[in-house]
């Protein structure tokens, strides 16, 4: 695992697939824990795209690196209206 991650390109594109919205945010406005993620070798690399999609009572968040590779995959559950 490398100690120093490569420099971030500067923006992260947040995509809402349900609404078809895309919004690029300066990385300075994004929490540090979301700016970088480990790649498959455990090295921190920049996150440049985050895609959210709501399906039923779930929302998935996919975080991608500069090469289009998926770095983290999160499933969320809706907090209310659950049995």
């Amino acid at each position, binding site marked *: 695992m490398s100690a120093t991650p490569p420099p971030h390109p500067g923006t992260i594109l947040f995509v809402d697939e349900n609404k078809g919205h895309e919004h690029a945010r300066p990385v300075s406005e994004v929490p540090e824990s979301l700016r970088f993620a480990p790649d498959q070798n455990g090295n921190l690399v920049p996150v440049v795209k985050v895609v959210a999609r709501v399906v039923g009572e779930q929302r998935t*968040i996919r975080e991608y690196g500069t090469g289009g590779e998926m770095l983290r995959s*999160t499933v969320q559950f*809706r*907090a209310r209206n*659950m049995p």
Partner: protein
Amino acid sequence: MAVTPAAAAAAPSSPKLPPPATQIGATPAPQPVSPPVVKDGGFRPSARAATLLDLSGARGAGPAERLPSSGDPFSGAVRPASSGDTMPSVYRARRGDTLPSIARKLGVPLSDLQRANPGVTRVRSGQLLQVPPRAPVAPPLPPEIQQHLSERLAGWPQGAPERAELERAFASPAFASLAADAQKRLASWVSGHNPISTAGRAELSRVLSQPGASAARLQELLTTQPGLPSVVAGLPVIAEPNRFPYTINGPTEVVNAFASGAAPASRFDVEIEGQTIPVYLSLAVEPKDGFRHSLEEVARGLAALPDSSRRLIDRVQVEGKRNPSDAYWAKVYNDPDFRSYMTAGANGVVDIYPTVWQQPQHAVDASLIHETGHILSGRTFGSWQTPDPRWQPWDAAAQRDGLSPSTYARASRTEDFSETLTLYQLSRGTPSEAEYRAMFPERFAALEAVLAAPVPTR
């Protein structure tokens, strides 16, 4: 004696008849040229129905046939004997007949029979009932398709309502007019006992009961697949999935770097098939953040994973607090109502967060398979966003299958992979496996190739 249409029209006491049904995808049916046939406790079947039912006395007629006079108002009626006739007729009830039993005998839906005889609730012996027009006659299906349909129907016993429903659908002109591959695909989709098939079968029956049901409408049904679950994880659990044997060792008290922050933890080692997976349970638990999975539930979930997926897992962290990223995503996506349940990283780290509602074993099983499936597909096929030729076999398999396991699977090829993998893995060794394999033969084969290959290295 042959009777001309004019003579037939002049026959006495002819009841008012509904118009003949239009035949789809087959030689047009002859127009009615005579008053209806009356048979005691019998009816005049279509040529196709006559092959399915024992209709002594209703077959073998010549080009035109006079029925024996019986003194009833319709005696002397003449019926044409050409095949494919859809002319409606009248049924004289026998003792013991009921509307449902007559509907079964006639091979028409009960609702159609009730509509054709408004106000009739109980049937008396000798009572005359209007027989609704039967479905137009479909042309015979090729032997290969018939074989496929027989295999699909074999899962249902003779006399089962579901089997009768499927036989009616497969005998419809709309089905006969579909392309051969679409016929096989549709049959594979709707013929099973599983929840995906059950929903598809209901949609198929609904479409076929509507006026104007056509091959185009069935093709649209295949394309849209209404009734699909939003996610495979949402399917009801029919059978316990196969799990590898496992043992749990520990704990060791450590400090671990959780996603929700460094915290004291109990480390347990879950041993499965010679692999050791460290599971860290945070001891810094925030009770208000909800329910956590137990160590046993996590171990059982790991044991339900395909070997190839499990070997990509470096460790599991059962977090004591919410995912700190939730707050930011709530703001960015303008919806605060979602809470993280599980994250799988490309580095093989899986985080499981507390939830507002207690999640069943099925949730951890399905989510682990799905989320780690993204790691597996990424290492096998590469990025799904950039053109990568390694995805081509999967894309081709999905196109040949032509069906989706869930609506979410349509979001992208990587979701299709993970959703199909979840369905594959959770159905292995269960009664549903063969049914799902019939629906997704190409992708199941592609999955088995992936799972049989050496575990993708880092």
